[in-house]
């Protein structure tokens, strides 16, 4: 594994811990006999920062030859091979985008219509051919959810202007 990846993740964690601690300053620590709401977050946040720093230090200390070799692999890439090696990423990213649109739609159009469209689109995105099967699947799962969750469990889903 590229050590650059390791360093990246440690840095992100460090940053997360630091922001968390900064935010925690807002909450009182009080005295030791009656610790306030800021104490526990302070302890775990500090633990995270220490651990992440330790991981970072370990990776930075790695034998130079090894790190250089790994770095070579990491930096020499031009754009095309980079894109090629990360081609698998396109689909999850698209999926996440579809998901976000879906969740935004639920609020305006209502749960069932959005879900109906979401299932069709996501199965098409994953490579389903034709329209009949995805539509049938989507109708099926919607009916199933309606009877199980609305008719039986009486869960109320967000409704839109249509349904």
């Amino acid at each position, binding site marked *: *594994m590229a050590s650059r*990846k*390791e360093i990246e*993740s440690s840095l992100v*964690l460090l940053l*997360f811990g630091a922001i*968390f601690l900064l*935010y925690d300053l807002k*909450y009182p620590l009080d*005295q*030791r*006999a*009656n*610790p*306030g*709401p800021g*104490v*526990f*977050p302070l302890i*775990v*946040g500090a*633990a*995270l920062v220490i*651990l992440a720093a*330790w*991981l970072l230090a*370990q990776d930075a200390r790695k034998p130079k030859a090894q790190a250089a070799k790994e770095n070579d692999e990491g930096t020499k890439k031009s754009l095309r091979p980079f894109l090629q090696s990360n081609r*698998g*990423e396109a*689909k*999850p990213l698209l*999926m*996440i985008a579809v*998901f*976000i649109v879906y*969740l935004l739609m*639920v609020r305006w159009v209502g749960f069932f219509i959005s*879900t109906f469209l*979401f*299932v069709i689109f*996501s*199965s098409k*995105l*994953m*490579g*389903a051919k034709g329209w009949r*099967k*995805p539509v049938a*699947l*989507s109708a099926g*799962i919607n009916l199933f*959810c309606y009877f*199980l*969750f609305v008719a*039986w*469990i009486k*869960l*109320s*889903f*967000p409704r839109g202007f249509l349904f």
Partner: protein
Amino acid sequence: MDGQGILSSLLIAFQPVNFLACFIGAVIGTLVGVLPGLGPAAAMALVIPMTLKLGPTAGLIMLAGIYYGSMYGGSTTSILVNVPGEPASVVTTLEGYAMARKGRAGAALAIAAIGSFVAGTFSVIALQFFAPVLARSALAFGPAEYFALTVLGVILLSNLTGKSRAKSLIMIMVGLMLSTVGFDPVGGVERFSFGLESAQGGISFIAVTTGLFGVAEVFSIIAAKEEPLDLLPVRFRELYPSRKEIKRSVAPIARGSVLGFLIGLLPGPAATMAAFASYGMERRLSKHRNEFGQGAIEGVAGPESANNAAAGGAMIPLLSLGLPFTPTTAVLLGGMLLHGITPGPLLLRDRPDVFWGVIGSFYLGNMMLLILNLPLVGFFAKIVRIAPRYLMPVVLVLCVIGAYGDNGNLFDVWVMLGAGIVGYIMRKYNYEPAPLVVGLVLGPVMERSLRQTLIISRGNMSGLWDSPICLALWLIILLTAILPFMIGYLRSKATARPRKSNS
């Protein structure tokens, strides 16, 4: 406990509602074990809103059914298609798939099911004896003891999960940090909610679990190239293991049951560890050592028994102390809390119907799974071939409903999506999601017990280790924290010495 406990537990489990709940749970569990994309923890989280309709006893029986049903289902796909449905079945692929290629798939499946049944029953009996005893002694536990115990859990968990101890610890810390969102458990001060009303009650762990184990898994499957699965056929006639195979399996099943149960008591991914430990043990002890890797039945019988026994063993800290150390038991705890039941030393006294009902359902569920799985094994194996492009959208919709149904607000669904994205990235960077979920659930217990201890001792830090139980726990913590480093140090010295003498 005594005969009365066993009898009453079975009577509760045989009530029609509970019987049905157990059956449905076992079927869902088997399906989840077979299908990729939805682990047992996520599936249980999804079902929780449904169980609220059923009431606590039947609801928890259903959740427990999913829990051990997935153990059965996971082994089916390991043997037939070399794809473990859940992590505890990874070891089974080694010998199980090799056996299937030799044409002994049926025998491997049968032995796995029988081993699971024997081990499951063994662990239930042990659970029945141990849990009340532990629950009674747990009554002596005050906040200081609880705090020490959770710290021990955190340390052990980080020692036992994943490849990197530091990374597991980091994930636990992130979980603990997330657990501080919302009203604080002692004073009720609102923290880290950023003015969002929906965040006041804290981050829904159901949303986080479905995100990390459901949505993230779907993203990974989408990213992976689709490979056609090579399904080996099983005929019903082949399901009978030969007499020799049975004879060779008896000892591994017995050893796996005991080993698995003991490992189940420890915090951490007990079922997976138990399976690996048992495989290692069988390979060392077997008379047919040369067959290992080419389909040795011991390598199926031992681990399959061990992971089921561990699933039972892991129920002990949950039912008697109220502390979950695996994602699945964490979800079970969450389910209990939603039903208004607080697991812990008082559960047996306050809600004996729930306590014994869940234990009784273990007997029943194991029997059902044995009857269900052997004839239907071909059917379950075929399900694996459902194309992800049809399965994954359904999984995603179920995740959305599960996250939404918990509190009925969309904020939780956004949390789930966030957890899914983070979980997907975590996988790429070799961070395990399980410790995070456990941290999220243990967080409030840890914080409350720490602050209560300090209040009781009037700010005196020694209150943390004043009682003999606490002192013992802290000593164990110290040992478990230092031991891995000591072993590592000694090993590096041992390898350095011969090198020196060479030069």
